[in-house]
């Protein structure tokens, strides 16, 4: 990948504190372990070549780009399309393969930082995309246009939310102040996400025209993965709420990181970060922001869930009649 654009979301080694890297490694390994078990249970050996070849396609598909403006180009990252085509758990495995090979063989992202990169791109990406896609498909009652809007929003969010996580990790490591990292990463990836979303729409349109069955088959069985949907929504909720808070009160994180340096952070993080972090949260405006964010999200979720329930009954009857 000597000549490929450096993806700003692959964190190299050296940028994350060792403690945070290890914590994220553990989280990623646990979730990927669950993905392996679920995938092993639900789909047979038939899916193994499918996942391998699709991982290769997503890797190579990142060569597909189109010029946006002034020398910048949009290109595909693929978490959303994988989650839509395969379902969340296989998508986690596919994206894990892609990100791991990028790190191991092409040095796109570090090895110690691989845990964090896996968490951002192979777990948050597919989870968020799948959760939003499923919910929006319920909302839009499986209309054709709904498929494309849901695809776009899922793809855009998977990029954007993952970039927020990436920025927060950099801020937690004391590498980049939160009030700079969060807006910068967020803004860059809000744009990159548009490219991803547009390509995803194009891809969905093509697949819809050529092999409708692949999309319909997937839309009919989301109920099984309700945990992923909730998890993905929670992840996006937490990150969306946490990021503006962290960037408006960067002192808590930065103070610890700068005062003590890496090792002290590693040693004292558990005692220091939490109080420093929550203290500014007690002040009124920040608390209000969080409360408003959570309330808004709960209302949206409630409405969506209600619609989903209302939608589910007739479709379940349809299934029964069939």
């Amino acid at each position, binding site marked *: 990948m000597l000549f490929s654009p450096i993806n700003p979301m692959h964190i190299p080694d050296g*940028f994350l504190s060792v403690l945070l890297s290890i914590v994220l490694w553990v989280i990623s390994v646990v979730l990927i372990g669950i993905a392996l078990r679920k995938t092993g249970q639900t789909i047979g050996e038939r899916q193994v070549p499918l996942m391998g070849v699709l991982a290769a396609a997503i890797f190579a598909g990142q060569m597909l780009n189109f010029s946006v403006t002034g020398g910048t180009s949009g290109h595909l990252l693929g978490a959303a399309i994988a989650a839509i085509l395969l379902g969340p758990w296989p998508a986690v495995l596919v994206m894990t393969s892609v990100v791991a090979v990028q790190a191991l063989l092409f040095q796109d992202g570090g090895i110690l930082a691989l845990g964090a990169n896996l968490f951002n791109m192979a777990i948050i990406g597919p989870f968020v995309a799948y959760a939003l896609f499923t919910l929006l498909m319920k909302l839009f009652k499986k209309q054709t246009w709904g498929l494309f809007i849901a695809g776009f929003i899922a793809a855009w969010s998977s990029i954007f939310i993952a970039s927020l996580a990436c920025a927060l990790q950099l801020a937690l490591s004391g590498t980049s102040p939160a009030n700079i990292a969060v807006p910068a990463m967020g803004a860059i990836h809000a744009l990159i996400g548009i490219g991803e979303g547009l*390509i995803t*729409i194009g891809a969905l349109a093509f697949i819809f025209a050529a092999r409708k069955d692949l999309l319909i088959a997937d839309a009919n069985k989301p109920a099984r993965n309700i945990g992923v949907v909730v998890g993905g929504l929670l992840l996006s909720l937490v990150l969306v709420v946490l990021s503006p808070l962290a960037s408006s009160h960067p002192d808590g994180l930065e103070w610890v990181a700068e005062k003590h340096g890496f090792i002290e952070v590693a040693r004292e993080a558990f005692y220091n970060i939490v109080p420093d972090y929550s203290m500014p949260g007690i002040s009124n405006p920040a608390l209000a922001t969080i409360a408003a964010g959570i309330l808004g999200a709960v209302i949206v979720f409630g409405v969506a869930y209600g619609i989903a329930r209302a939608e589910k009954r007739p479709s379940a009857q349809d299934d029964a009649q069939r």
Partner: protein
Amino acid sequence: MASPALKSAHPLKTTPKGRWLRELYTPNHSAVHRIDARVKVIFTLAFIVFLNLTPSGAWPAYVLFFTWMFSLSLSSRLGIVFVLKRSLLALPFVLAALPLVFTGPAPLGHISVLNAPPLTYSVVGFYRFASIAIKAWVSVMAAVLLAATTRFPDLLTAFSQLKVPTLFITIIGLMWRYLFVISDEVTRMLRARTSRSATAPRSNRSGGSLFWRARVTGGMAGNLFLRSIERSDRVYAAMLSRGYTGQPAAQKTTRLQKKDLLVLAAGVILLVILWLLGVITGG
């Protein structure tokens, strides 16, 4: 992969990245190449962990870490230019740490360039920034060394011997096997798009809006996925016809030899010593 001649002769961009997927492995016969892949994997990971654990500003330790990795790279005959060029890959990301220079704590320094108003920077912040950049650079060198001296199948075997789940190894192995096939397919698609003027300069382009371009590219992506799904069906049929049962063929696991263990132990002890040096000298 597009030939360079085609690229230069054509006024349009033929393929955006001609040598996009160049395999890093360079077949030499050095001592580093011959070491057991498991030893290399564990050592590389330990090297990166200890390097990153070294506190910021421990310049003597950094120099030793760098020298060690650089001489290992040279002794495996990778070529200075190759190692340096390849290891600068992570450099753009350094931008993420740049704000530290200006937002770090006191004491503040001032520099003024050409009588411009002086720029205020934090000395501690600058040290942290420089430390991060050096760590990132040397870490990438370590990763380059691993990938350039170990064949990918050996790497996969090492991972499976280190208890990475088999399903996962199988997926990555298949992915690796088809990566070059599919990247050739993508190259052909890109060439087809170029020849149909979708990336031509504005005046020659049919339907030049951003959305049109995105839709064309999206169509290609969808096409690629469909072709890959169908290819995986054929792959599966071929695997079945050769007796695939869902279980990978049993492979013999050899124990690490005493020599390998000694090398690994010596390396890790040296790493710990370097790290302690870093803790003593670091700020």
